[in-house]
């Protein structure tokens, strides 16, 4: 009996081996390996990547670099976690770092560089970044004058998600000024609709969507100079200008007439917040460009005439032109083996960015990517604003602030501001007090 089973098993193994051989040959015949000739002699090597990116985006990423892995024979093992911000430092400190990590916070990058475990960017990556990215983008991957991490994806935060179908049914027009938007919200409220939805819940990072709202308002209200001063704390949270921006956020996202249950925003997860948009349970949600992926999970179509789409969050006035708040990830390396450098170089190339952009739901600030390559309408819209020479660009402030504030007191206090009705005066006092002294 046993012998027979063993024989059968061997048979299956041989068959599957043959099958896998056949599939590899047929696949490589269809792939154009010309762009990857530079990465040679790495067959069978593997590279581990750790990221905060989750499914379904994880699978799309793997599809985007499939040609690279097929042609070079390098295996890329990617692991996503919603506890990324907490786990990565633990793994780095415990000498269990991944080869590469997509770090969504320049502040976190700086902290990790301090541990001495992050490798400087290799020459090939520096060449790519100098060629394809603007100086300001390179600066975000630079810590204390040394360049470590190439930009990976980028995202546009100044978007409002809505349902074109619902807008059509109700006879609403997409607003192009702030006054238009508030007038529209009043109209919705008069009809008994929830004008704005919102959700702050995000596990250990609960509260971050509220930091986005305040950032939008500070940039719209006061422009780059004040925004950057706010980021480096030369302008405190208790500054009247920041307080006035927070009051404007309160008048918008804490207006019971528009949002319904204000406190419920604190306990709703950010993923659930916009789920009702296609059915008109709520009409608008201020969220970043990646949010289309989350709405699409329920089968909703994302297009200018479909179940959901986005419009640009209007400027407050003419004082600040085309304010755009955005963010992005940076590829940091914890190893310098040839296969790691190869993957790092490939990920910073226009080849990768273009192949990723063609697959939907991704924006790159890589200038080597032709706008026509964008499959996704929202991303094309975002790329237009990110690349607009008139735009006033602000990198996500909470990502730039010290972790004690940007990943600590700001999340916590803004959650208390929404969920417990803590006053703005108390919130700014607590955040200013938490700012590191040195």
């Amino acid at each position, binding site marked *: 009996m046993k012998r027979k089973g063993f024989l059968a098993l061997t048979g299956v193994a041989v068959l599957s081996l043959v099958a896998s051989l056949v599939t590899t040959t047929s696949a490589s015949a269809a792939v154009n390996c010309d762009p990857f000739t530079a990465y040679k002699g790495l067959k069978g090597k593997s590279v581990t990547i750790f990221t905060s990116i989750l499914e379904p985006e994880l699978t799309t990423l793997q599809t985007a670099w499939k040609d690279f892995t097929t042609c070079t024979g390098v295996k890329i093992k990617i692991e996503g976690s919603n506890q990324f911000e*907490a786990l990565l430092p633990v793994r780095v400190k415990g000498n269990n770092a991944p080869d590469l990590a997509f770090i969504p916070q320049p502040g976190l990058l700086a902290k990790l560089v301090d541990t001495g475990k992050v490798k400087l960017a290799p020459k090939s990556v520096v060449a790519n970044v100098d060629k394809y990215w603007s100086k300001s983008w390179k600066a975000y991957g630079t810590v204390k004058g040394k360049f470590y991490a190439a930009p990976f994806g980028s995202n546009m935060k100044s978007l409002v998600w809505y349902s074109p179908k619902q807008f059509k049914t109700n006879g609403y027009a997409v607003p192009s000024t702030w006054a238009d938007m508030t007038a529209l919200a009043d109209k919705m409220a008069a009809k008994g609709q929830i004008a704005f939805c919102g959700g702050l819940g995000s596990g250990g990072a609960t509260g971050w969507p509220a930091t986005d709202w305040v950032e939008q308002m500070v940039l719209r209200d006061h422009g780059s100079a004040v925004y950057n001063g706010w980021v480096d704390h030369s302008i405190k949270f208790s500054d009247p200008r920041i307080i006035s921006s927070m009051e404007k956020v309160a008048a918008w996202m804490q207006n019971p007439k528009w949002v319904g249950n204000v406190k419920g925003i604190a306990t709703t997860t950010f993923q659930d917040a916009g789920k009702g948009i296609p059915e008109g349970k709520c009409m608008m949600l201020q969220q970043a460009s990646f949010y289309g992926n989350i709405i699409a999970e329920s089968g909703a179509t994302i297009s200018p005439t479909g179940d959901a789409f986005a419009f640009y969050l209007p400027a407050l006035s003419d004082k600040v032109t085309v304010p755009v708040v955005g963010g992005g990830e940076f590829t940091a390396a914890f190893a310098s083996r040839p296969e790691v450098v190869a993957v790092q170089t490939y990920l910073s190339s226009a080849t990768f960015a273009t192949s990723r952009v063609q697959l939907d739901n991704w924006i790159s600030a890589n200038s080597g990517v032709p706008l026509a390559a964008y499959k996704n309408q929202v991303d094309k819209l975002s790329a237009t604003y990110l690349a607009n020479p008139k735009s006033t660009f602000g990198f996500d402030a909470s990502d730039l602030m010290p972790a004690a504030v940007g990943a600590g007191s700001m999340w916590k206090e803004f959650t208390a501001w929404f969920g417990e009705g803590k006053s703005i005066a108390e919130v700014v006092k607590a955040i200013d007090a938490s700012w590191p002294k040195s």
Partner: protein
Amino acid sequence: MSEFISTTIPKFTSVFIAIAVFFMVLSLLFAIAGRLDGKKTRPVSLAIFLGPALLLLLAGLVIPGVRTIVFSFMNPDSNGWVGFENYYWMSQDPNVKTIMFNTILWILVVPLFTAALGLLLAIMLDRIKHESIPKSLLFMPMAISFVGASIIFKFVYEYNEPSESQIGLLSSIVKFLGFTPTDWMLAKPLNTFLLMIIYVWTQMGFGMVILSAAIKAVPSDIVEASALDGAHGWGLFRNITFPMVKGSFIVVLATGVVGALKVFDIVRTMTGGNFGTNVLANEMYSQTFVQFDQGKGSALSVVLFLLVTPILVYNIRSLRRERAHS
């Protein structure tokens, strides 16, 4: 397949070499110890047998402990001294006040309920038919991790707007009884108690098993004798059963106190420490690994350590006392 073999075999080889070296060193040590005689035998054999354990204790407990205490007097990156500043921060920060209050609340409420409910269940289920079935069912939550249990209770505490249907068990019950449910995780100070229920739910099975074993160990002749003397029901429990299981009851209580001090998973999963539910262990984690302030994180763990110490001392003392009696 060949790749699998080529990468796996070297790994195994190094494992075998490591094991061989380990045994060689051990046999060498034993050989030396065997040849010794006279005065040196005792200290050398002590060193050989206690040495590894002491070494592990040093590496796993003493050194990290001392390092944590040292770090608590240093800045966030642990490269400069700040004196008592981290402790001063703890005494001044309003969030830490809430955290301390909640932690003490956990210590006071959770062990008592875990032990009391465990005792109640142990008595109620004692000597009924098919005793093992309900006991196994009650013990089962113990096998669920706190994170798993928290996710289960997230659904129990789920809240929807009054206009929508309530999918959460608690909200549905409250609605059925004719009251209006609220957003449970926001309702201070009720939310902390709702989190405690999760802990008690998973741990009361443990209390029940320990106490049930203790009740079964009460000699039946004592119970019969007291029954002849007219003791039954509450009197029997108060004067005979409880004094006999008191030792086990205290063990369950002490385990509960240590567990409640360390509670982290439940708070992190349910509220992330928001809405006034934060506790010491969660804040320690956030400070150290999210906000990268090793100083404050270490100061918090030192306080946690100081809070656990008296209970450990008490436990060891009562253990010694019991040994002295027997």
